[in-house]
């Protein structure tokens, strides 16, 4: 449980003239849920996109399962066992829900058991199976985005703010789902603003600000330390949950 699955060492990312990530060091241990927190614009999404190869790190090193992936192209990174839920969800609105799911399942087609599990977690996926994904509601799209990432077993899932726009009941299902995945030895790197949710499943946590990791440690430690929360995130748990 402590061997790192994904590590970022001194990763810098430039987007055009902007220097966004300024030396990110991050370790995601195998088999757990790591949470990445931080204010708007801190660079969380950029970190995930850099791991996926959607931005290229200008300096530093990213390795996954012991293998360096810094310079691989996105399809290769994906095939090496990483699934990705982008923050804009990346739904193919022209296609139906079914087609969206089909594409997410690699050549072999979908495992019916797993599909049933997903449809039970997120009932709208079943209900709107043949509807155009563009007509789904905001929350339903979010469910589809997560469903796509979990339709097949992957070693690592990068999830960017999956709970935004979800009703409390569904957040619960989502949390359940992530827990179940964790039990199947899937590692999860989660970016979240919903601290209550994040703290309930996170094993380790890292906090970003201005393109740096400003804190990394165990989730339990952060939950216990209200001062630390206050300082790092400007929030106090009591006020909001």
């Amino acid at each position, binding site marked *: 449980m402590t061997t790192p699955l994904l590590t970022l060492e001194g990763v810098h990312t430039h987007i055009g003239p902007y220097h966004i990530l300024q030396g990110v060091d991050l370790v995601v241990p195998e088999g757990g849920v790591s949470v990445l927190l931080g204010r708007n614009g801190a660079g969380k999404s950029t970190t995930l996109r850099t791991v996926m190869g959607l931005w290229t790190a200008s300096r530093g090193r990213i390795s996954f399962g012991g293998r360096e992936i810094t310079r691989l192209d996105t399809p290769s990174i994906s095939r090496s066992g990483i699934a990705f839920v982008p923050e804009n969800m990346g739904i193919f609105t022209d296609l139906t829900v079914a087609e969206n799911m089909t594409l997410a399942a690699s050549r072999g087609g979908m495992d019916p058991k797993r599909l049933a599990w997903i449809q039970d977690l997120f009932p709208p996926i079943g209900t709107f199976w043949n509807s155009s994904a563009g007509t789904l509601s*905001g929350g339903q799209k979010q469910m589809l985005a997560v469903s796509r990432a979990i339709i097949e077993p992957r070693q690592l899932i990068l999830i960017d703010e999956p709970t935004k726009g979800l*009703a409390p009941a569904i957040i619960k299902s989502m949390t359940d789902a992530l827990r179940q995945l964790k039990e199947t030895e899937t590692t999860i790197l989660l970016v979240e603003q919903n601290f209550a949710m994040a703290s309930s499943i996170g094993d380790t946590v890292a906090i970003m600000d201005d393109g740096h990791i400003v804190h990394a440690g165990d989730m339990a430690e952060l939950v216990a330390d209200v001062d630390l929360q206050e300082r790092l995130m400007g929030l106090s748990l009591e006020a909001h949950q």
Partner: protein
Amino acid sequence: MTTEHPILETRDVTIRFGGHVAVDHVSCAFPRGTLTAIVGPNGAGKTTYFNLISGQLKATSGQVLLNGADITRASVPERTARGIGRAFQLTNLFPSLSVRENVRLVAQAKAGKGFDMFSMADSHIELIERAEHVLAEVRLLDDGDRIVSALSHGDQRKLEVALLIALGPQVLMFDEPTAGMSVDEVPVILDLIRTLKQDMDRTILLVEHKMDVIRSLADRIIVLHNGALVAEGEPAAVIAMPIVQEAYLGKVPEAAQ
């Protein structure tokens, strides 16, 4: 009979997509100066209901009334002109313009200057000032010159709210304004909404999934479920209802246990 209409009212509005009834005979009145929270599971029809009110979708049947006047057939800009404004759930901005330009465009729309062809845009000082003011309120002033498409997601959400505030209509509809916003930004937005309601006497419709937000802001809650209005009333009372507990919050009602 009475001269005092509710500012906004829907009567039996319904919309079908193919056979699917997304909003099902919803009748509801929104009194002036109140804040109504609309809750319901994902896909309940909340956004669609907003679309029917602001005109992006046209009702299959039923009526939408503003100040007692029927606006069911009015176009989107017409409704905006009459005082309905909304922010979108999935951010919907002018991506290749700067943040500042986005807000100015809204101020300009509000001032009805869109067809002014022979004055210089930069000579309308009052619009520029208005835009700066709103940007300051949502804490985006520093990012004023950035192109919107390069903003982080949370900042785009803030700009989404800023546009609606700059438009400053009589009826404001927020669709999950705080989704994706980091915890330190949320109170800023909530304060803005509170100010709009209390100091400016605006009528607000708010879709939110965060119960604490609703508790702290709402005068009233209506619950949509599968397109139908299933409950309506004081926040505390509504949240306690079994249907809300079960279908929305995902708690198994104690009675059934």
